[in-house]
């Protein structure tokens, strides 16, 4: 590896790699190796491909490439044949020989193709799958093309061209102006204009300055930052280098959750490789600009996603936030000017530099520009990561991209913004997704978690769930959050177990308002949101828990009973055999009965009954 000594050398390296790749006639089998597919055991599929290629002596004609997350996690392990673009889903190791022979003969393995949920027709190519079709994948789309452990793959998609452009004569002020003009807002949840943040840090007195990439994605149910970092670390790093140049910083940190081992590994490899090419370190591209990046692993504390708590954690202290009388842009890490942005924000920077602020500003709504990656999870057919332009409606995301609710159940709500966000009911499904509109309906953009709930999800239980999370994760520094959230959680637990009082609802509102007014950090002030938004839209559910001692969704264990439907039960005996309590009685081929006194509501019979005869009331 030779160090790149000038922006011109960078440009010629890009051209050289693109030409080399263009000449190769090898068929590439790309496999998703993201965390989701790892969980599907994609390593075994990779091994099978490697063995198959070796056995068949195909290494001249076929290559395999393990990429980052493609986004369609529901259907993993995902395999895409390039250049034809044939898309196979749910690939198992035993399917590999068939795929390999089809690849050689130019055929298609019909049974592994994706089947459209509505029309039931089979879809051959990746770009035609409805899940991908409706998306605008500027940032996330490259994940499927590159092996994150090889910098050349990133350079082949014109990676580091934006850095070359910047270093060949864009003064820092002009970069900041460009970012401001693009209208890019922080993707971590706050939505603060990125350009203004950069400018403040640049102008703040004090040396050195730091840039930080916040990859401490603590929101449960959100995993796009981790996937982006593990699937395309160079994109994020290129953004950071450009940002550091604009701000005048020579040291950056990536603060990443330790629960994302693959992201940690890939970003560390990427840093090494970038150093090898002289894209990090001293005198980058001969411009005299020095910059390096260090990786810091988080310790599993949600509050460390908050900027000041994150600084404390990098400094090797307990991750507690401080009051922000002075912005962290002025006094952040080690009390020096610090610019902290989310993974996705950094990833947008090269795009803006390459294509220009005017192009970028055309995407999205008036005050929210560009695209946003959401992790669409929960009770939805197509779980996965979706990148959509700002301004798309929730309905389009849930129905068209997400493919609706499984088992034809009814949609109830979508939760956005993680523990600081709120639940949006069906009436507001046509709300355009952008920073301001989501805030208007009582939720927030947040970092991009989007959890879909159906009529079997109890909203009181969801509120309790989030408060339990926040109670455990409260750092304990300020009283409103430490004690207030604890009390709210207690009240909700009582309601969920049928001991709620009518006065509880007012009390919840009152404590919630106090926490919002008085807590120290952003996570504290937004902590009551899950309760406030569900109280606003689903007050009737709270009331039936309190007045009728009933959980309408059948989710609160203390308030439900399991019953066997006499009409449907044909006495197959599966439930009787599997019940750990011996609570089910009945002769074979006769209707069974469930003894409510013995039942511990473990749910096995409900899951196992082949006829759906076990009901939750």
């Amino acid at each position: 590896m030779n160090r790149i000594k000038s922006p011109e050398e960078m440009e010629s390296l890009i051209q050289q790699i693109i030409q080399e790749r263009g000449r190769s006639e090898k068929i590439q089998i790309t496999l998703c190796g993201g965390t989701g597919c790892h969980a599907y055991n994609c390593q075994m599929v990779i091994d099978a491909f490697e063995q198959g290629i070796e056995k068949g002596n195909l290494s001249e004609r076929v290559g395999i490439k393990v990429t980052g997350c493609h986004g369609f996690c529901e259907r993993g392990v995902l395999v895409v044949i390039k250049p034809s673009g044939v898309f196979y889903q749910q690939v198992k190791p035993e399917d590999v020989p068939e795929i390999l022979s089809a690849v050689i003969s130019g055929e298609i393995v019909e049974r592994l193709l994706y089947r459209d949920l509505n029309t039931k027709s089979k879809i051959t190519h990746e770009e035609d799958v409805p899940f991908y079709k409706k998306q605008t994948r500027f940032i996330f789309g490259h994940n499927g093309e590159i092996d994150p452990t090889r910098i050349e793959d990133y350079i082949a998609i014109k990676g580091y061209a934006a850095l070359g452009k910047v270093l060949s004569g864009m003064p820092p002020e002009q970069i900041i102006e460009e970012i401001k003009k693009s209208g890019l807002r922080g993707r971590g949840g706050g939505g603060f204009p990125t350009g203004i943040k950069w400018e403040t840090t640049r102008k703040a007195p004090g040396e050195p300055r730091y840039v930080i990439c916040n990859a401490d994605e603590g929101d449960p149910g959100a995993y796009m930052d981790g996937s982006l970092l593990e699937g395309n670390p160079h994109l994020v790093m290129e953004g950071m280098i450009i940002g550091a140049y604009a701000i005048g910083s020579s040291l950056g940190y990536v603060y990443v959750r330790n629960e994302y081992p693959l992201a940690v590994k890939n970003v560390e490899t990427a840093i090494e490789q970038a150093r090898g090419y002289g894209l990090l370190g001293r005198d980058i591209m001969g411009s005299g600009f020095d910059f390096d990046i260090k990786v810091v692993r988080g310790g599993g504390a949600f509050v460390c996603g908050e900027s000041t708590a994150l600084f404390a954690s990098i400094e090797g202290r307990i991750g507690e936030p401080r009051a922000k009388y002075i912005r962290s842009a002025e006094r952040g890490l080690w009390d020096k000017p610090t610019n902290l942005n989310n993974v996705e924000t950094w990833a947008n920077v090269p795009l803006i530099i390459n294509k220009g602020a005017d192009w970028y500003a055309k995407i999205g709504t008036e005050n929210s520009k560009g695209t946003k990656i959401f992790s669409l999870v929960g009770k939805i057919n197509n779980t996965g990561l979706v990148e959509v332009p700002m301004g798309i409606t929730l309905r389009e995301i849930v129905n068209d991209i997400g493919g609706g609710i499984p088992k034809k159940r009814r949609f109830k709500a979508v939760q956005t913004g993680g523990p600081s966000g709120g639940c949006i009911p069906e009436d507001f499904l046509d709300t355009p997704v952008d920073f301001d509109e989501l805030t208007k309906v009582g939720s927030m953009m947040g970092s991009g978690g989007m959890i879909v709930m159906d009529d079997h999800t109890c909203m009181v239980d969801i509120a309790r769930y989030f408060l339990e999370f926040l109670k455990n994760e409260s750092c304990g520094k300020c009283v409103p959050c430490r004690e207030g959230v604890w009390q709210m959680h207690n009240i909700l637990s009582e309601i969920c177990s049928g001991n709620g009082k009518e006065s509880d609802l007012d009390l919840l509102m009152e404590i919630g308002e106090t926490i919002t007014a008085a807590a120290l950090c952003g996570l504290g002030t937004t902590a009551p949101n899950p309760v406030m938004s569900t109280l606003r839209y689903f007050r009737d559910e709270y009331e039936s828990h309190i007045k009728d001692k009933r959980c309408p969704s059948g989710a609160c264990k203390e308030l439900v009973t399991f019953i066997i439907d006499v009409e449907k039960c044909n006495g197959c005996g599966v439930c009787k055999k599997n019940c750990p309590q011996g609570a089910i009685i009945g002769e074979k081929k006769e209707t069974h009965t469930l003894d409510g006194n013995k039942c511990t509501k473990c749910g096995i019979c409900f899951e196992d009954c082949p006829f759906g005869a076990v009901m939750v009331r």
Partner: protein
Amino acid sequence: MSNNKTGAVLVIGGGIGGIQASLDLAETGFKVYLLEKEPAIVGRMSQLDKTFPTNDCAMCTLSPKLVDAAGHPNIELITYAELEKIKGEAGNFKVQIVKHPRFVDEEKCTGCGICTNNCMVQNKAYFNRQPAMIELAAEDAGKVNTIINNYHSQPEFLLAILQDIQSVYNYLPSDILRVVSQQLNVPLSKVYGIATYYTAFSLKPRGKYVINVCMGTACHVRGAGMILDALTRHLEIAPGETTKDMMFSLETVNCLGACALGPVIVSNDKYFGKMTVSRVEETLEKLTVSANRRDAETLRR
């Protein structure tokens, strides 16, 4: 309050807690014996500068109580002595105390200080005592030193150092935490502060297989709670505990980022997705079987 109290009370430990208890008891009329293993009552509080939460000066709180306790007619100080045996039951205890020799006549000594000044052998000052250096077994010392040296013994990497130690030992052994504190020159309290604040750390040894149940929102709405209940029932331990045979530890994690597979559990880097209550038992078996096989393979190699 009646004055004819019967019996006497033995308070063990002459720190601020013991002193205050003795004073309160003595005030209500009990005869109090205050036992302290050091040559003088005073305890740790005298080593502190300020106290939580009021930021009061520690000595200002403590010293009047010292004087009171020393002069109280109902309190008898037994210093430089330790409890050897205790017999009997509430209301009727018999204790045996070993008093260390002072080699100075306590009746006559007024604490004038002349002998201390004139003694030719210098004793290290009482409050400057250093905690004894912890000696680790050679193997452990090697491992710990490698980890600390990887980070150039810089205290700012305390979190990373603890993470690496945990990945070697599966938990944070207390001896090693002491060594870390000494080598990085960071107070032990700070090391423990970090170790107890971040949820990723465990101070107790964990089982061979740490089962992490994902409690992310996506998993929650798909029934992660039921899975956790089922694991609790099968393993007979609560989350955060370890089975007696040290095979399994049960823990929860906020989100593993594998939401499509929810509810998901992960154990020693192996993921089990789309869990159901009825598959819990089978999964545990699979885990032990594959574990045994892996052990056998390692042995063969």
